[in-house]
């Protein structure tokens, strides 16, 4: 089975998002798109500022799990399409590290499916973020 790759090295560029949106102009059965973007925050942790997050993953396991999530979401919601992109490597504060894009005929499916997909990605994909402090040091990110 050929699994869809969701990973890319480095940040997700705004023009990449634009190209993804533009590609859907030919799919005239779509009435609504929903997009979630995760952006790296410059959090202040006990006086130390986060300048970047370095993401690593158990890649082949993550792709298998993402495939399972995708199948479950398509079974639950009448979606036209769903696209997921997650960064690996060092992503600087202010850059985009997660891009989830759902489309459907009527808006509700796209909106609900996108939110559910984001929650499942954060809870179920074996991905780890290392928050790198300005100057020196790091801590491991914890999802809430």
């Amino acid at each position, binding site marked *: 089975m050929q699994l869809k790759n969701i990973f890319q090295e480095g940040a997700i560029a705004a023009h990449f998002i634009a190209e993804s949106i533009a590609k859907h102009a030919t799919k005239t059965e779509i009435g609504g798109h929903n997009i979630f973007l995760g952006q790296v925050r410059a959090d202040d942790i006990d006086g130390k500022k986060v300048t970047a997050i370095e993401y690593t993953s*158990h890649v082949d396991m993550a792709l298998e*799990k993402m495939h399972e999530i995708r199948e479950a979401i398509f079974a639950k919601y009448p979606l036209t399409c769903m696209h997921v992109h997650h960064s690996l490597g060092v992503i600087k504060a202010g850059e985009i590290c*997660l891009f989830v894009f759902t489309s459907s005929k009527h808006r509700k499916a796209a909106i609900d499916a996108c939110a559910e997909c984001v929650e499942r*990605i954060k*809870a179920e994909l074996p*991905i*780890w*973020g290392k928050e790198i402090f300005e100057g020196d040091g790091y801590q491991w990110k914890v999802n809430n």
Partner: protein
Amino acid sequence: MSIEIIFFGQLADKTGCSNVVVDNPGSIDALSMVMKMQYPNLATAKFVIAVNNKIVFDNEPIEENAKLAFMPPFSGG
């Protein structure tokens, strides 16, 4: 038979290595015990173990050529 174990995220910090090859101790519980003895920092760490890309919830036997992964809580997105 030896098996290979990969440590992800902060677990690699705690063990000081990202992977290790050990004799197959035969089961998940036995492996967990062996690893905590070899790497005392693992004893207080939160982790789950995946065998062949599936998280294990029980004390399964470990088959030959199984791909073992020790994984701390996920923090993607």
